[in-house]
């Protein structure tokens, strides 16, 4: 059994990488994938703590997170297709009509 600190730190690293990915990439699909990466890192922490505490609830929660992520991907990708249809691009920097 590896100490839990390792898992938590790995989870933190992956999460940070996910955040950085969201910030530095312009491709909306890659941003989306980075978000998935962040969700995944959170899941890892959950599973690690579930093992640590002998609590199966953590695993069930991960299960729900995955379901929600699946729903989110379906809608998000549909949105992306729609955006692409009107803007002919999925570069988020071109979607700047909120500019004040």
């Amino acid at each position, binding site marked *: 059994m590896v100490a839990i600190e390792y898992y938590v730190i790995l989870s933190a690293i992956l999460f940070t990488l996910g955040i950085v990915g969201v*910030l530095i990439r312009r491709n909306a699909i890659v941003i989306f994938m980075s978000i998935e990466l962040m969700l995944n890192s959170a899941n890892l922490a959950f599973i690690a703590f579930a093992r640590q505490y002998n609590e199966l609830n953590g695993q069930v929660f991960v299960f729900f997170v995955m379901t929600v992520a699946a729903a989110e991907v379906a809608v998000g990708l549909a949105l992306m297709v729609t955006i692409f249809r009107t803007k002919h691009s999925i570069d988020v920097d071109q979607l700047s009509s909120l500019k*004040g």
Partner: protein
Amino acid sequence: MLLREAAATNYFNLVPWVVFFPVLGILINLLVGGRLREKMIGVIASLAVAASFAVAVLLALSLNDQHAGTIIAFMNLEWISIGDLHIDWAFRVDTLSVTMMLAVSGVGTLIHIYAIAYMHADVRHHQDPTRYRRFFVFFNLFIVMMMILVSADNYLMLFVGWEGVGLCSYLLIGFWYDKGKGGANHLDGISNALAGKKAFITNRIGDFGFLIATFLMFGAFGSLQFDTVFTKAPFASQGTILAITLFMLLGVAGKSAQLPLYVWLPDAMAGPTPVSALIHAATMVTAGVYLVARSHELYALSSQAQNIVALVGGLTALFAATIAVGQFDIKKLLAYSTISQLGFMVAAVGMGAIVAGIFHLVTHAFFKALLFLSAGSVIQGVEAGHHAMEHGSIKESKHKRGEHLNEGGEFDAQDMRNMGGLSRRMPVTFVVYLVGALALAGIFPLAGFWSKDEILAEALHLHPAVFVLLIIAAFFTAFYMTRQIWMIFFSKPRSRPAEYARENSLLLTLPLILLAVLSVFGGALNLPFWHTLTHWLDYTLAEGAKVGSFNYLVAGLSTVLALAAIALGIFLYGKRYQAQAKLPAAQRPVDPVQPYLRGAFTGIQHKWWIDEFYDWLILRRYVALSRFLSYRFEERFWHDWLHDNAIAGSFRQTAHFLAQPVDLGIIDGIANGLGTISQRFASWIRRAQNGFVRSYATWVLAGMVIILGYLILR
């Protein structure tokens, strides 16, 4: 056998259905009525009321077993609970309320059936067939409200029904609110609406009285529930009881069209004829009588109140009867007759002869509904003749035909001077009208004879002065009914439309025949020596009902008077009318009785100028006061002086001072300075809003980092 078994179980729990069946009818007609054929709408509405009647019959059967009746709290619903005031939605089932339910729903069913045919023609006559459904919705709503009124267990619920029927009355008087010619103010097209308004406002005065009575009752007894009020009433002071009963009398005068608030009822005839029959003759206007009967224990405590009520009733009976003599409009005459008969009932219940009053209420519902419906049949017959003439082959100028035109200059199918000789054209209508008229005149052995005689006999030993008033009114009653019968049905037609009048369909005449049968045998409810109704109501009225002995003297006197009046009527209208008809127009009197009554007839014809008097006494004063308030007070004092000079002037000066040096110099300086600063700041910070979603995310992350950092370093 079957009846006994049925009665053994008790049906009291069904009582909410007397209200809900008509509600159901309304809902069906509202929801799907638009897709139904016209006849189906009428059938649904009629069935709803008939079902209500069936429930009332079941209740009566149950009561036959358990005389005391009961109070059914509907689903234990508490309606109002504020402080000491607790009012439940409860239905009262006792012999009095069930008698009213039977009368309302029974007569109501027949009138609904009649209306199926009548409104079919009426909506076409007024060229708006879409209102057919609306009519039956209103009609059912009226039954709902009337049932709430009679089944109420407390004064406030009774008031709900009381206001509800008033609303329906208003809606139905003004049913053709955009029609109606002439009228008191010669305003084209809205006279029906004005009539509805008049009824509503006059009733409002009465309702005000009723409300005050209710408040007083709550103040004195702490409850509005009938039983509680009646048990506590004997311990209240005389003055309280007198105030309650007299304010209640004001309500009664409004709803039951008594002096001095009767003026709305004749105008209410602007509504379609079934409305006049159901609401303004048979049921709603008797609500006041019911109220007094229901509260008889209060009235019994104050002989002064009883005295006043009886006098009001007696005076109304005579007063309205005299006016009826001079009317030419077939429905207005019946309206005044209704007022007069209501006077009989109010006088009866006022004297404490509750059973006699309720008995007359029931029989009157039969024959007055019959008369109104027959009048409707006559009107439609004549209208049909008029229609056939206008669009048929016969063409003549209107004046050549000698028609009496209404104030709008059109042929008036309700003017009895345009009728005559209809007995041959409309035989069924003639026979039932005759039955109704004889019943109203009080001819043995029709229903009216028994009920009217009971009132007269009671009056003789309870209140002789009222007896005199009533017996004179009875004489007039017989006279004006003879006059009406003769003018409508006998001699020769006095206008071309009358010559072409035709009998109506069976659907229209069938309810008439049934009502005629009821008018003949209705007296059997309370024959002398049997007193069925007296014993029946005695379970509820306890001390109110006294079994009066049949008074041969009174019966004989009233019969003789009625026969004399009929003979006089036949002489005047059978003989003189024909003779006078041959005179040249200039010498022809307006009416055969005019030469005998002279000035008095003018008074009768103008309804004793009561409307004008009210106009002068109340409306003029009111308008003058309004004018004074608006011109003198509002315009001159309030507006010109106080507002313009005192307030506005000083305000303007202060404002000027504030505007120039203070506002422009100091305030604007601060405001503009603030504006400039925030503008500059905004244009700087605006750069953050670059529209790039990633930069927003960066700021979020930065915030997160800062907060975490703070938590660590804390």
